[in-house]
């Protein structure tokens, strides 16, 4: 079943982290290859010619692109352990809907917090808090979005936790103050080895963004 598994990735990427977590949950051995996004490898360009983006999962030489598609692929191929999507079709649809919501909202809004200033930044902060509150509401009394067990939506969202520190510093606010249940959930996830080993250090992310801003000429 295993074959050869390669992950083309970039250490601060929340999208790459999703795939790392899924591979770790399923205890799959794989080769991690760090990409320099200013100098993309021939392999990356060959394996993802349409978007030229990481992460790219390569299984027995065949590429799978887009993080949530990769997580579903991993769940379906290695279907004998640590299921990420539940068996019930309605619950699956719900998990997919909110994971898609994370994709549509969190990355861009979070990005605006460190890329912009003034009114634009304030508007992004307000909307980000609203979105996080909506997500927090989906937890209910459960330990995870997947219910009793860590699942697909947990995988989709938890990588953003290591970026919260950066969002908070630039946005001058506390996500924990706004969404305490969400932070409690994130800390619970961090107790899992698959998550702790896959997320980047939040201070390193902040440092990375500071350097990136300089490089991009953003004040």
């Amino acid at each position, binding site marked *: 079943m295993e074959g050869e598994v390669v992950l083309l990735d970039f250490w601060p990427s929340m999208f790459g982290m999703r795939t790392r977590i899924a591979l770790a949950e399923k205890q799959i051995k794989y080769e991690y290859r760090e990409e320099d996004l200013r100098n993309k490898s021939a392999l990356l360009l060959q394996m993802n010619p349409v978007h030229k983006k990481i992460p790219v999962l390569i299984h027995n030489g065949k590429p799978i692109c887009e993080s949530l598609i990769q997580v579903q692929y991993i769940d379906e191929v290695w279907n004998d352990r640590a299921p990420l999507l539940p068996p019930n*079709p309605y619950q699956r649809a719900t998990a997919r809907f909110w994971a898609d919501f994370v994709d549509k909202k969190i990355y861009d809004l979070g990005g605006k917090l460190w890329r912009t200033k003034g009114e634009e930044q304030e508007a992004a902060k307000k909307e980000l808090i609203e979105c996080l509150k909506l997500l927090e509401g989906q937890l209910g009394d459960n330990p995870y979005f997947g219910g009793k067990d860590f699942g697909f939506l947990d995988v989709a969202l938890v990588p953003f936790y290591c970026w919260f520190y950066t969002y908070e510093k630039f946005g001058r606010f506390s996500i924990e103050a706004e969404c305490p249940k969400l932070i409690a959930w994130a800390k619970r996830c961090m107790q899992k080895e698959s998550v702790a080993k896959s997320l980047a250090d939040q201070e390193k992310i902040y440092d990375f963004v500071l350097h990136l801003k300089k490089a991009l000429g953003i004040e």
Partner: protein
Amino acid sequence: MATSEVKLLGSWPSPYAMRPRIALNIKSVDYEYIDEKLWEGKSQLLFQSNPVYKKIPVLIHGHLKPICESLIIVQYIDEAWSSGPSILPSDPYERAVARFWAAYLDDKWFPAVKSIGVAKGEEEKKAAIAQVEQGLGLMEEAFGQCSKGKAFFGGDEIGYLDIAFGSFLGWLRVTERFNEMKLIDEANTPGLAHWADSFCSHAAVKDVMPDTDKLAEFGKMVIAKIKAAGAAAQRH
């Protein structure tokens, strides 16, 4: 299953609303179709059923809470009515490929098609058309790989990627008509040209594919509204 057990909120010109209808037809599921005239305003039912995005399509199945986002609905239909013909391929790699191209069409390709209609000036229009044509080149190649010589992306029968892509054919034809050009044709995209005919004449599709003339009339109205809104914004 009783008709009122399954309700679908849609809008006849919407390619997204077509998708779950095709899926329900493939599974031979009876459903109540509720048409929203979005250009006249959104109904209370729509606001209640999709508070997050306030968009169609929305599937309401029995007592379950509504399901939103067309491709998520299609996957739900495939999984909930598992005894009917399969919509997603059975092989995980083929599923990943189908999902990839569906996401590409939604995120990149169809926005480029829409931008042709509202392009300001010839340069912008040419760039949009080039992007659409490039995408069709990719889809022609994908068709070769996925169909393996059969009629559809899904093989002998319509599948997930057929539904995702085919639902855009109405608007593609309207775009071709408005710009007096062919985007899918025998010369450049022979595979897609045959596929498009097969798709549109399929039993699960033909009654939910809007008539091109009607869609063109609707398209004129939408473009006029967008341009008027743009002009009004500029005046302020």
